[in-house]
């Protein structure tokens, strides 16, 4: 079975600082994809970043980057220069051959002014 674990239910960071959200996963498949989604209070789930497991290079999207450690099955999200608008729930998710997303329980991030 595929599982995704987020061990940090809540985190906070000061505006302009850097924060790292943790995610570990388990899968027996060789080809899979990892995602970080953001869900603000509006409830809209927004894709932040995705990583193909066969790519060794860590994905980067502007202020968001990941540290993908395939052997350790770890996929952390780093948010640089945190902004107030980054306040949201962040979900780590995994998609294997069947393409359905398996989700972690989320990390609630608060960015403080």
């Amino acid at each position, binding site marked *: 079975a595929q599982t995704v674990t987020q061990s940090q239910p809540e985190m906070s960071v000061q505006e302009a600082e850097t924060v790292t959200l943790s995610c570990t996963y388990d899968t027996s498949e060789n080809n899979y*994809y990892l995602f970080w*989604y953001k869900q603000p209070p*509006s*409830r*809209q*789930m*927004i*894709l932040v970043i*995705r990583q193909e497991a066969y790519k060794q290079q860590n994905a980067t999207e502007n202020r968001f980057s990941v540290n993908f450690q395939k052997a350790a099955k770890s996929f952390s999200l780093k948010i640089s220069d945190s902004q107030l608008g980054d306040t949201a729930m962040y*979900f780590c*998710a995994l*998609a294997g051959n*069947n*393409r*359905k*997303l*398996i*989700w*972690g*329980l*989320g990390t609630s991030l608060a960015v403080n002014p």
Partner: protein
Amino acid sequence: GAGVSQSPSNKVTEKGKDVELRCDPISGHTALYWYRQSLGQGLEFLIYFQGNSAPDKSGLPSDRFSAERTGGSVSTLTIQRTQQEDSAVYLCASDRTLDTIEQFFGPGTRLTVL
């Protein structure tokens, strides 16, 4: 272009009634997914469509749940004889194909069963 839309935004119903939740995917997206987000269970997969067919219904929690998709576009999730444990946010997502692996989500329907 327009994103994924869902209706209604909120639905309050009485236990035992049937409800229909609607999802309009992004135009041209062939893959469509339904997920449920509840306080106790987090996010869970319900069903997905490739075109109008549903190859994987394994996530539907009971036979009270069904879904269909017509014309390769709009999808309806139906819950019959609703129970209080069905209260949750129902999220729909679409993807260009099954292989692009980039799901775009709608705003969800919050269902409350009294």
